[in-house]
C-alpha cells in the first residue's frame, strides 16, 4: 500500500543523496552479525523535508550516520550528487540531539568551527558566522559561552553551526527531543518559517525522530522504519499546506494512520508463539519495559471501562509522549495481556484479570504469562532448574544472548528478563556476585 514512487532519470540527476540497498550489520562479540538496517532505498531531492520515523532500536540514527559518512555501510551504497561516498559526506551537516557544543568556545567560535576547517580566512569567517547567528535568532549571544544559554538557545547554536557551511542537505538527529515541550514547539515553528520563507541555507532536510506528530508537522515525506532489523515499512506523503495545524482533521488522520502502522501486531516484536521450544529464546526481543509500567498501563486501560482505548489519546491523558508507550504496549502484547489493532489497545481476558487482581494474585498471573510466553524468562528458569546448585553466573546468559545482540543490548535484554523474573518470583539475582539463582524461599522457608 505504501510504495516508493519510481523517479524519472532527470530527477535522479538532481537527487542530493541516494541510498541503495543499504545494509548495516554490527559485529557481535562472538563474531556473529547483528543486522540493524536491511535493504534500505532512499532518495532525497532538493526542496523537500524527509522524516525518518521509528522506535528506538530501528536503526534510524545509524542510517543518518551512514548518509553523513560517519558510519560505513556493511553493503549497499550511499551516493552524494551521483558520486559514491568514501568517507565523510561533503554536502551535509549534522544537528545533534545533545547539541554537541564545545563549552570552551563562545557561540561565535562554535559556529565558525566548520568554516575554519575549510580554511576560510578569519574576516570572512566572522562575517558568515554572524549572518548565521542573526538568521537563527541568536543575535546578542555571539560572545556568550554555551553554559550561559538555555536548552533552546543551545540548540539554536547547533543549527547555526550546521547551516553556516550552507550544506546541500541538513541532517537532524532528534534535534528537539532534549528540549521541553514549549521550547521544542517554538523552535520547530521558527525553523519551518525560515524554510517556507525561502531563506533556508540548505536545500533539503532529513530529520530523524521518534515523535509522530513532529514528523507529520515537518515532513513532505514520512518514512517509517521497522525494528529488528530496520527495514522501510512504509512511506507516506504529507502534502498538507504549511503552516500546518495539528487540530486539522487531515493532520490527525495522518498521525493516526502512522500510529496504526507502528503499533500493528506484526510490526511489534516477533510473536512468542513462533518460538515455543526454548531454543529460540534469543530471537524474541524484549521491550525495555518495567513491571510497574506494564501493570500501570493495564490498570489504566481497565479503569477506562471501555472495550478498548485509543493509545494516542491515552498518551495525552497521562502526559506521555506516545512513543514512550511503545515498549509497554509491546510488553503487554508479548505477555498476552492485550492486543493492538490500528492504534487501539484492547485488554485480553488474562489482561483484565491481571489488572484487577491484588498484588499476590497478579504476580501469579504474571508468572504464568512470563513462563508461557517469554522464551528468555522460561529459558533462564529451566536452565537454573537443571543446573546442579540452582545458580548460574549472569555472564552465561549474556554470552548466549550476545550471539544475537550487541553487548549493551544483550545486557539490557537480560536486565529486563531479570526484572520480570524477579517480580514473578521465578528466580533471584545477586547483583554483587552477578549470579542468578532459583528463588530460595521455595527451598528453605524462612523461620523468624
Amino acid at each position: 500500500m505504501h510504495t516508493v514512487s519510481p523517479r524519472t532519470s532527470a530527477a535522479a540527476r538532481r537527487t542530493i543523496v541516494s541510498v541503495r540497498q543499504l545494509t548495516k550489520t554490527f559485529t557481535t562479540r562472538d563474531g556473529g552479525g547483528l543486522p540493524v538496517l536491511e535493504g534500505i532505498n532512499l532518495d532525497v531531492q532538493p526542496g523537500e523535508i524527509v522524516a525518518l520515523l521509528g522506535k528506538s532500536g530501528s536503526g534510524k540514527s545509524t542510517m543518518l550516520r551512514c548518509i553523513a559518512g560517519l558510519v560505513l555501510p556493511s553493503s549497499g551504497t550511499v551516493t552524494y550528487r551521483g558520486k559514491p561516498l568514501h568517507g565523510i559526506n561533503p554536502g551535509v551537516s549534522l544537528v545533534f540531539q545533545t547539541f554537541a557544543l564545545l563549552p570552551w568556545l563562545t557561540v561565535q567560535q562554535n559556529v565558525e568551527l566548520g568554516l575554519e576547517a575549510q580554511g576560510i580566512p578569519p574576516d570572512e569567517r566572522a562575517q558568515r558566522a554572524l549572518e548565521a547567528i542573526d538568521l537563527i535568532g541568536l543575535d546578542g549571544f555571539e560572545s556568550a559561552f554555551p553554559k550561559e544559554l538555555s536548552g533552546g538557545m543551545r540548540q539554536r547554536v547547533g543549527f547555526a553551526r550546521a547551516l553556516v557551511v550552507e550544506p546541500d542537505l541538513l541532517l537532524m538527529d532528534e534535534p528537539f527531543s532534549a528540549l521541553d515541550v514549549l521550547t521544542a514547539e517554538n523552535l520547530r515553528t521558527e525553523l519551518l518559517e525560515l524554510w517556507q520563507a525561502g531563506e533556508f541555507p540548505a536545500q533539503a532536510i532529513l530529520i530523524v525522530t521518534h515523535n509522530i506528530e513532529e514528523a507529520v508537522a515537518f515532513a513532505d515525506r514520512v518514512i517509517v522504519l521497522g525494528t529488528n532489523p530496520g527495514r522501510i515499512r512504509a512511506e507516506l506523503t504529507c502534502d498538507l499546506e504549511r503552516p500546518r495545524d495539528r487540530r486539522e482533521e487531515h493532520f490527525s488522520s495522518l498521525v493516526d494512520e502512522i500510529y496504526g502502522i507502528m503499533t500493528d501486531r506484526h510490526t511489534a516484536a516477533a510473536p512468542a508463539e513462533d518460538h515455543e521450544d526454548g531454543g529460540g529464546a534469543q530471537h524474541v526481543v524484549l521491550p525495555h519495559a518495567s513491571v510497574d509500567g506494564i501493570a500501570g498501563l493495564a490498570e489504566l486501560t481497565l479503569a477506562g471501562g471501555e472495550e478498548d482505548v485509543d493509545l494516542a489519546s491515552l498518551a495525552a491523558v497521562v502526559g506521555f509522549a506516545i512513543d514512550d508507550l511503545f515498549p509497554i504496549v509491546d510488553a503487554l502484547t508479548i505477555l498476552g495481556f492485550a492486543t493492538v489493532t490500528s492504534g487501539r489497545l484492547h485488554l485480553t481476558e488474562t489482561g483484565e484479570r491481571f489488572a484487577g487482581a491484588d498484588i499476590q494474585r497478579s504476580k501469579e498471573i504474571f508468572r504464568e504469562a512470563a513462563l508461557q510466553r517469554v522464551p528468555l524468562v522460561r529459558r533462564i528458569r529451566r536452565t537454573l532448574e537443571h543446573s546442579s546448585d540452582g545458580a548460574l553466573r549472569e555472564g552465561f546468559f549474556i554470552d548466549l544472548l550476545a550471539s544475537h545482540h550487541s553487548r549493551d543490548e544483550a545486557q539490557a535484554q537480560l536486565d529486563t528478563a531479570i526484572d520480570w523474573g524477579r517480580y514473578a518470583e521465578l528466580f533471584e539475582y545477586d547483583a554483587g556476585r552477578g549470579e542468578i539463582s532459583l528463588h530460595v524461599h521455595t527451598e528453605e522457608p524462612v523461620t523468624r
Partner: protein
Amino acid sequence: MDFAVLVAVLVLLYAVLRVGHGATASFSPAALQHVSTSPSRLSYDAARSLLRMFIALFFSTVFTLVYGYAAARGRRAEKVLVPILDILQSVPVLGFLTITVTAFIALAPGTELGLEAASIFAIFTAQAWNMTFSFYVSLKSMPRELDELSRSLRLTRWQRFWKIEVPNGTIGLVWNGMLSFGGAWFFLVASEAISLHNHTYSLPGIGSFAGAAVAKGDLGAIGLAIATMIVMVIGVNVVFWRPLIAWSERFRYETTEAADTQRSLVLELLARSSWPRVLGRLRARLAEPLGRAMRILGRDDTPPVAVAARQRAGDIAFAVITGVLVAYGAYETLRFIVTSPGAGLGQIPHCFVLGAATFSRVVVLLVFATLVWVPVGVWIGMNPRVARLAQPVVQVLASFPANFLFPLAALAFIALEVPIDVGGILLMALGAQWYILFNVIAGASAIPSDLREAMSVLGVRGVQRWKRLIVPGILTSYVTGGITAAGGAWNASIVAEVVTYHHTTLTATGLGAYIVAASNAGNKARLICGVAVMAVFVVTVNRLFWRRLYRLAETRYSL
C-alpha cells in the same frame, strides 16, 4: 600480561644502566658540608628549586600530550604504551632514579648541566605518569558526539587536537598536574645532591640547602629551610594551581553543572586586568598561521577501513618482535645479575626477604594510618565548615616533602633510642598518611545529606551507622587514598630506611636500605635486583588487593 610488561620495563632500565656505563650515582644530601647555609642564599636557592619544578612540569606536559596521544591513537602502540605507563605509575620511582640518572650524567659528564638535567628528570618522573594517564583516559572516553562533530565538520587533525581533544582533557590534566606537582617536592629535595665516584655534587636549591644544614647540624638553618618550604608549597598553590583549577572549569563538558564551583581570588584579579585580552590577541595572531601550516597533517575524515588479514599479520609480527626483544633483554638482565661480582642468583631470594621486611612496615603504617585518620577524616568531612578549612591544610601537608624532616626525626630517634627498624615506619608515615586523610575527607563530605538524615531518623547510629553508611560511603575514596599512600610509603622506604644526622647514620633492615647500599657501592647488579623485587611487590599487591577492593567499591558502593 602485567608481569610481562614489568619485565619489559626492567629490561628498559637495564639498557639505560648499561648506556650510562661508569659508576652509579646516588642521591645523598648528607655529604654536603661544603655547601653554604647562609640565610642570604636561601631565596636564591628557593627560586632555583622552583624553576626546576616548573621546567619539569613543562616537560611533563609535553610528554603527556605526545605519549597520551600516541597511546590513544595508535592501536599497536596502545598495547605497549599503556601497560608501561601503568607499571611506571605504580612502581617506586625513587628506586629507578639512581639508575636513570647515570645516563643523564653521562651526557654531560662533570658539568652542572648534567646534574641539573638529572634533577629535573627526577622531578619529571614524579609528575608525568599520572598526567599522561589522565590525558590518555580522556582521549579514550571522549563523548561520542564530539568525535562525530569533529568528523562531520571535517576538522583538520591539528584543529581536532587543540579545539576538542586537549580542552576535553584539560580538567583531568590540571587536577593530576596539581597532585603530581605536590608529590614532586619530595623528589626535588631528594635529587639536588648526587654522589658519584664517591664525590658529592650539589645544585643550588632548597634541598641541598637543607641537606647542608643537616650535615652541619645547624638547627636554625633547618628551621629556616622548613619555613621556606612551607611558604613555597602554599604560594605555588595559591598563585598557580588554584587559579588554574578555577579557570579549567570552563572545559567541563556536561549538561549538569559541577556540584561545587571552584573559585580563586587570584584568577578573579587576573580576569579584571587587561592581560587576558592581550594574551588572547597574541594567541589569535599565532594560531591562524600555525593552523594553516598544520593542515598538512590532514583531515579527521578517514573512516576506519582495514584490511583484516594484513592487519592480523602485522599484529602477530609486532607481538613476536616485541616478545623476542623482551625475552632477550630479560635473559641478558638475568645473566648480568648472576655473573656480576658481588651479586649472583642468591641475591634474588635475599631481596625478597628484605622486601618482606619493608612490606610489613608498609602494612603496619597503613593499618595505623587507617585507624587514626579514617575517624578524623570522617568527622572533618561531615562538618562542611571544618572541611572547608581543613582540606587545603591537609593538601599542603600531603605535598610538603616529608624527607625534609627525616634528619630531625633521626635526631629524635638517636636521643630516645628508638630503633630505626621501628622508627622507619614513622618516617614513611610522615608523608604517606595524608593521602588517606585527604581522600577520606573528600569521601565523607560526598555522602549525600539526605542519606545521613534518613539514617538519623531511623535511629541508625554507632557501629551500625559505620557499617551501613559511613564505610560503604567512603570506601571508593579510601581505596584511592590507600593506593597512593602505599605507593608513597614504598618510595619513602628508599630514603627512610637509611637516615643520617650529623655524623650518625641509622640503617634499618629492608629493601630500601639494600637499594641505597647497592647504589652507594656502585653495584649495578644488586641495584637492578633490588628495584625489580620492589616493583614486583608493589605490582602484586596492587593487582591482588587494591584493584579488587576498588572494583568492589566501584560496583557495590558507588554513590
